[in-house]
């Protein structure tokens, strides 16, 4: 799918090259592809329709930068518009009230409410030094309350014990009283999963909300959710004054179009994303990464940004082509990649541009700018033949290179291992597309949950 899209877009880009201004005509084909991309990413149909109309309005008449084709320029507009809709900037959690600040977690069954409650507690304890109380009023799902109790134990948050037979409203009242008496800064209320069409359950959550008057009512959305995201988002936002969204399971390979649907329909910001099952797997939301992920084209977007920043586009395109073919990726290319990386503002700047799931994985691959310099030094000490055919590098050659670069032989070996990994990744990318590569990246990291 990824291959598909990217190649489709490159096709569009080609056909549009050499025009100076975006017009209704020259963006039509590209817009069709954008629609497909959004559909494949699970953005809901009604949202796509409105989005395309917006993009069209913004795009028509725009000048095309000399270094870009109209197709690339359009993708740029699409990307910017996606970012704008999804919030532009990261929005912090709101705790500005008389304590306890109450956070109500709501959403469909299995979306990740309980896990996110635990994660949020941990985040508030670690990052904001808050005293947190975790409460569950999920009296329906077997062992749901016990699940939260275990998570509370793991985060160091307090847990509000529930007696058998207690009803959600009783639990809420008692917990509120408890939190006040024990001076908790924050009280997180986990609730049972519910369907938007379950009137009794929607009535219940509405009453809980009225009773607790939470400062945050967070709508928990599974990143894998499809078209129905609009219906649920609409129904929940009609019954509850939602204040934000938590997008879960972003560590998977879904494209996450539900993020856009839910954001669009509720009008509320995505405040956090879940990126792992473990309790540290909660991160602030980055609209730019999400936009790239939904479009499924981190690489194309990267090119556009680079063009705008004045990086040698031809070199980058050459490399991208070589990457795609997976053929003949040698140490020269590796070096070029390192240089490009430095031109683009170093490794850390690069990370910000990757689609979120990739950059999340890549963060764990230790490689800072100093390492990049040393690596380059090592490659510089190699002969042309050695760079083109790394397989001829045996012990004696390695020793020579190490001496030349002023490093140890181990470091040369490390570089070669790294190169091989990269090469493998390139191959994977050419064979199975981005999704496979992401999986590959994760597999290279030490096993963790």
């Amino acid at each position, binding site marked *: 799918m990824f291959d598909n899209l990217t190649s489709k877009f490159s096709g569009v880009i080609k056909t549009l090259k050499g025009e100076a201004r975006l017009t209704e005509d020259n963006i039509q084909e590209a817009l069709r592809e954008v629609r*497909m991309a959004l*559909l*494949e*990413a*699970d953005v*809901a*149909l*009604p949202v796509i329709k409105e989005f395309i109309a917006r993009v069209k309005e913004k795009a028509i008449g725009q000048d095309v930068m000399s270094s870009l084709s109209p197709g690339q320029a359009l993708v740029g507009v699409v990307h910017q518009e996606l970012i704008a809709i999804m919030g532009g900037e990261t929005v912090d959690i709101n705790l500005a009230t008389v304590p306890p600040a109450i956070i109500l977690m709501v959403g*469909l*069954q*299995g*979306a*990740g409410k309980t896990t996110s409650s*635990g994660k949020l507690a941990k985040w508030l304890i670690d990052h904001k030094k808050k005293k947190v109380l975790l409460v569950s009023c999920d009296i*329906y*799902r*077997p*062992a*749901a309350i*016990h*699940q*939260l*109790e*275990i*998570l509370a134990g*793991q985060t160091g948050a307090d847990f509000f014990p529930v007696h058998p037979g207690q009803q959600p409203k009783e639990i809420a009242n008692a917990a509120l009283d408890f939190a006040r008496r024990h001076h908790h800064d924050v009280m997180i209320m986990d609730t049972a999963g519910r*369907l*938007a*069409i379950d009137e009794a359950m929607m009535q219940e959550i509405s009453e809980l909300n009225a009773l607790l008057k939470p400062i945050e009512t967070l709508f928990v959305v*599974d990143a*894998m*959710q*499809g*078209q*129905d995201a609009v*219906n*649920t988002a*609409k*129904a929940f936002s009609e019954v509850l004054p939602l204040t934000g969204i938590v997008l879960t*399971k972003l*560590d*998977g*390979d*879904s*494209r996450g*179009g*539900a993020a856009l649907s839910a954001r669009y329909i509720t009008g509320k910001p995505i405040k956090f994303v879940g990126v792992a*099952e473990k309790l540290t797997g909660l991160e602030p939301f980055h609209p730019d990464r999400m936009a790239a992920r939904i479009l499924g084209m981190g690489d194309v977007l990267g090119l556009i940004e680079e063009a705008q920043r004045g990086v040698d586009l031809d070199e980058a395109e050459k490399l991208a082509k070589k990457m795609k073919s997976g053929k003949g990726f040698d140490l020269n290319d590796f070096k070029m990649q390192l240089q490009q990386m430095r031109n683009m503002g170093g490794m850390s700047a690069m990370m910000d541009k990757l689609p979120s*799931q990739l950059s999340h994985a890549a963060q764990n691959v230790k490689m800072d700018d100093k390492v990049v310099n040393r690596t380059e030094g090592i490659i510089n000490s190699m002969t042309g033949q050695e760079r083109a055919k790394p397989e001829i590098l045996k012990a004696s050659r390695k020793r020579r290179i190490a001496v030349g670069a002023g490093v140890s032989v181990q470091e040369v070996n490390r570089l070669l291992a790294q190169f091989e990994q990269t090469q493998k990744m390139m191959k994977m990318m050419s064979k199975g597309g981005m*999704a496979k590569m*992401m*999986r590959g990246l*994760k*597999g290279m990291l030490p*096993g*963790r*949950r």
Partner: protein
Amino acid sequence: MLSFIKSKNSPAPTELAPSSWATRVKRGLEQTRNSLGRQVSGLFGGGRIDAALYDELESILLAADTGVDATTWLLDELRRTVKWDGLTDAVQLKGALQETLVSLLAPLERPLDTGTNKPFIIMLTGVNGAGKTTSIGKIAKYFQSQGKSVLLAAGDTFRAAAREQLMAWGERNNVAVIAQDGSSQQKADPAAVIFDAINAAKARGIDIVLADTAGRLATQLHLMEEIKKVKRVIAKAEPGAPHEVLLVLDANTGQNAVSQVQAFDAALGVTGLVLTKLDGTAKGGVIAAIARQRKEGPPLPIRFLGMGEGVDDLQPFDAREFVEALFD
């Protein structure tokens, strides 16, 4: 969502309250009884087949999560039928599309036969929160009501209270649950728990073992390795087992369900699907894409549909019912 049945002058589509699958099925069947043709033509006035009509059908399919690829294929098939059969009005067109879908999905209607082995070992897998544990609770009841004895294996040793959740389902159904000792501090090996459960089932002459496993995303390579190992260990406990590898899919899932099937099938050799949460407003149309996914061999059968959180909310898959609900 956009509903075909509604005429052009009906209220704006977004105003329509979405209905659950169960209601849709019921309504769908009623419609068949009242002669679908008359109802539709009443609103549509036997309208002509034009591009707008195709667009509308496309919207219905896409909004049901059928996906670009399967939708394109279905509409191409439809155009062919229109040409061959010389269809001329809107009502016929809708009927033809439904028939195309029914014939695409009918091969998925293959119920599970558990009579081939004793104990018959069923392993459930899937992404996080899809409904594995709950489905086990319902499937246990389903087989029990057929007079079969069932045993549950608490193979999710990872998620908080997963074990307790399954034990609660065991209690509800009054069936034994083999789990790791609750007092043990260390997390047990899921394969070991299931291994023990199979041996217990053999010793007790149980008919069916349902093994729960922890939810996992296919991107978590080490967890995909772990589940492969679980399967290998099951085969050690009982040669030829597991006899069924069920992949549980959430009907709310969009196109990622296609990748889920692919990844879990590659790792485990999936033999059947369970589609859950159809009592909500999601239509689960992604199974049309899944039905077209396998290039060699028959498509994966859908063994059960999950229709709620209660122990009886389980149904076998019926392609025609499903398609009718999709269009409502």
